[in-house]
């Protein structure tokens, strides 16, 4: 009975979804959808009796999961929609994707994003790994604060303070040495590294904490210098965590909007910034297309990272 009720609920959600996309008969479909949801609730209430709380848990959770996914599914679907308006389904087309690849600005933004993400990921991974090891081994007092605060505080604060720093301090100071310095790719990379270090550090530290300490002592006991111990024992053992951290940093960098917004100059555009401009100026399904591609990329990266460090997800919390 419970399964039937939940199936009815799923069907109701699907009908509501369809009602949104349909060109005609939207109202009837919507009513039908809600009716199904009510029926599902009724069926569940009648049939589940003793496991009633369990049923409500499933009912509510299904709605929440639907809430999480349906908006994104709509974005993906409309990216293939043969209509300029994101209103209803007209027909299948890949035209928007074609337009995307012909858009020079977009391609430049994509290139920038990847370049920045790669650079930032590498630097953040190296520094974050060092920070993670340091915090585990030496328990420093100030470093954890410096590492974790950029992650915990609202991004706008970090973005704004870096803006002031770059334009008001770095530019004149470096100018005095004859170096021209302005907002651009470099400043974005620096900004991204600053908040990515924390994520890598958490992962590496968690990995070290879960290991048998005596393994490192054993290496030194058997004749390995501290550097050899790191190279032959520590590094191989934390490598999955380091790679997961690198992927995480890459993903965060590619997706970042707020900090990039403040740290980039007029000429530097990344994909999120490009999307932002498109949203504010003229909304076309091109946005859907680039969003879909971006989603696919970050999805793949998260899945790989999840394979390498399954407790990564918990560490984030």
């Amino acid at each position: 009975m419970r399964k039937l009720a939940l199936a009815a609920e799923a069907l109701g959600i699907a009908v509501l979804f369809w009602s949104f996309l349909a060109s005609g008969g939207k109202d009837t479909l919507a009513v039908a959808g809600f009716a199904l949801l009510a029926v599902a609730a009724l069926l569940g209430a009648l049939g589940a009796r003793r496991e009633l709380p369990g049923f409500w848990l499933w009912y509510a959770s299904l709605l929440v999961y639907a809430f999480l996914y349906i908006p994104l599914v709509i974005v993906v679907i409309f990216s293939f929609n043969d209509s300029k308006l994101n209103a209803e389904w007209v027909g299948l087309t890949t035209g928007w994707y074609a337009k995307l690849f012909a858009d020079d600005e977009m391609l430049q933004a994509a290139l920038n994003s990847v370049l920045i993400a790669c650079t930032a990921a590498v630097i953040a991974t190296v520094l974050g790994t060092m920070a993670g090891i340091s915090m585990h081994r030496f328990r420093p007092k100030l470093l954890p604060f410096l590492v974790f605060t950029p992650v915990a505080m609202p991004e706008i604060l970090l973005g704004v303070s870096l803006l002031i720093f770059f334009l008001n301090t770095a530019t004149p100071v470096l100018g005095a040495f004859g170096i021209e310095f302005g907002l651009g790719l470099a400043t974005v990379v620096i900004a991204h590294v600053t908040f990515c270090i924390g994520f890598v550090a958490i992962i590496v530290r968690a990995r070290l904490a879960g290991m048998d300490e005596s393994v490192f002592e054993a290496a030194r006991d058997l004749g390995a210098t501290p550097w050899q111990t790191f190279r032959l024992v520590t590094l191989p053992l934390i490598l999955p965590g380091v790679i997961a951290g690198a992927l995480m940093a890459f993903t965060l960098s590619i997706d970042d909007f707020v900090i990039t917004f403040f740290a980039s100059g007029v000429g530097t555009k990344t994909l999120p910034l490009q999307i932002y401009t498109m949203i504010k100026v003229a909304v076309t399904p091109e946005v859907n297309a680039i969003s879909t591609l971006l989603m696919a990329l970050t999805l793949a990266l998260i899945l790989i990272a999840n394979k390498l460090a399954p407790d990564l997800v918990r560490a984030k919390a």
Partner: protein
Amino acid sequence: MRSNRTLRWLVGGPPFLFLVVFFLLPALIMLVASLRYPGEFGGLAPLIATRPGEEAGLTVESYGVFFSDWVYAEIFAKSFGVAALTTLICLAMAYPVALLIARSPKKNRDLMVLLVVLPFASNFLVRVYAWMIILGPFDLLFSRFAVIVGMVYVHLPFMILPLYTNLEKHDPALLDAAQDLGASAWRRFWRVTFPLSLPGVFSGSALVFIPVLGMFAIPEILGGKDDWIVGNMIKESFLGTRDWPFGSMLSLMLTLAVLAVAGGTSWLARRAVRQA
């Protein structure tokens, strides 16, 4: 070992230095910036006057403006209101999911958690844009409602995960004991599960409340001019009116607010743990 100290600096040094230069220093500079005059063409005025009659040096002008005009207090209050509402809605929506995952058999849990995290894989703007599409036809766009929906949508995973992490650790035997002693399902939840989950509730709340306070993109894209919160003001100060001292002052105020919230939830969480 004598070499331990050099090792410490070798390993911990580079990240430490990097963060001091690119995090601590900018923060301090911003602190000072809030006490300066705005530059003639925007930005900051110099600390030492280079031309006669130019404003330079330190001042508490920005703070004066902040404390003299009620508008700013209102905006902060609005921001707190939005953040609180978002947090409550997130809590109500996140709890069933977190509970369901925690109660599910072990082999399903990782998958269910992954399903919660995956929407997070999409770009933040994409998630906001999706609601533009959905709310547009219903004429609900550019309203307070849209802003809240957007805020909830973006931050929901941040409430689900800490809550789940906490609930997963609960000992099922406690509930069995309660049932054995005659408690109904609702009673069991309210008297056993919920109190024990309070630390998770508080850490999840902090993870939602604090970022919402500083948001500007969602009110800007999904809301009207009326729905501006602190984040919008800060952005406007730096990129619109270019009154950097004012923007810095607002940022500092925001930082204080964040610290207060963080401290508050942390204190509440510790109290909850002690009472549990």
